[in-house]
């Protein structure tokens, strides 16, 4: 399964994104970034990214 890692600008946006995706039954999880302080959203479904875009949730795709 392909894993997408979205670097979130803050924990607030990470939780907002997580709750939005989970409300649509899309699996994802917040993880502490491996380097530097911050939080990433790990996503396993590419359509999740378009949902974040449509809802104007900022992120940077790491992988």
């Amino acid at each position, binding site marked *: 399964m392909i894993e997408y890692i979205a670097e979130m*600008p*803050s924990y*607030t*946006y990470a*939780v*907002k994104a997580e*709750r939005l995706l989970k409300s649509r039954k899309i699996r994802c999880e917040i993880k502490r970034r491996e380097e530097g302080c*911050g*939080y990433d959203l790990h996503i396993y479904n590419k359509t999740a990214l378009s949902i974040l875009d449509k809802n104007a949730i*900022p992120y940077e795709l790491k992988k």
Partner: protein
Amino acid sequence: MIVNFDNAATTFPKPRSVKNSVYSALEKYGSSGRGGHAIAAATSQAVYSARETAADFFGAEPENVVFTLNCTHALNTAIKGIMKNGGHMIISGMEHNSVARPAAALASEKKISLSIAQIYPEDEKTLESFRNLIRSDTKAVVCTIASNVTGQILPYQEIAEICRSRNICFIADGAQACGIIDIKMSQGINILCTAGHKGLYGITGTGLLITDGKYKIPPLMQGGTGNSSQSLVQPEFLPESLESGTLNVAGIISVQSGIEFIRNIGISKIFSHEDRICRRFISELRKNKNITLYRSPAAEYVPIVSFNINGMKSEKAAEHLAEKGYCLRAGYHCSALAHSQLGTDSGTVRFSPSIFSKESDSVQLANEIYRLSKNKL
């Protein structure tokens, strides 16, 4: 016997659910937005839930809800942020010192120019005051939704519309209105500042700054935000950009619990209850010719009543009433501008009930005031 009628300062007592939420938060939570361990994650989720609750209550996005230390902190952040690069600002003549002092400080430092709009009982006259002061370089209007001295509700939605039509940032002080009247960002408010410990029934040390996101607010202070820590530049994203340092997690949870308490009862029921007590109190005071009431039939009010016993200093009156067990606030209520407009040189005595107040207590208080006014004479 202690009867609190000083709820405009801080609501007391707090709902049982709020007290329980604080205890529970202290049992379960640590720091929010820091670290990735179980306690940090649970805390961060809880704080986000509180943001969602507040956002839903005021019609905002969760990320646009900034938790502050109190309303003064929120107002200073908004005023000093929006006016950072100078310009002209208008404040109402009913503002609390949490608006008037930062505005006056910026003006005395020659960083901004400042105008003060006269407030009248008639809304149209008040609106004309604001209209007449607007200039081409006016950047912001700051206006309380309801005066903390008299309780007068200002025509904030109409002022917001004046601002919107001229691209002026409208900052509303909701300290005496939130939880009492239904305030929504969609009423034209760009930045809403309020206390968590008054009408929202949270604990002291809590406040909220809520923005519609139209105007960028530079931070009042910089520091740790839990993300991008390798950079010396303060992150730009709300709410963390304005929330440097460890949050008051237990306080934030208490505000969430307070909002839920209000929702369960209903804002209109809370207003009706407190307004009924005020009307009864006023009708009792009106039987006494030695009382001056600071209310006009032309204006609308939140449940606050300001009065004076003729010939007696407000502080002296409050002191006597405190000896009988009644807690009321006297003096200037940190609102020199409002008292200047009212012409109350030695302040007023302020009566402010909460959802827990009883009409019978207000009648007994009025009787005590009657006795006090007679004994004085």
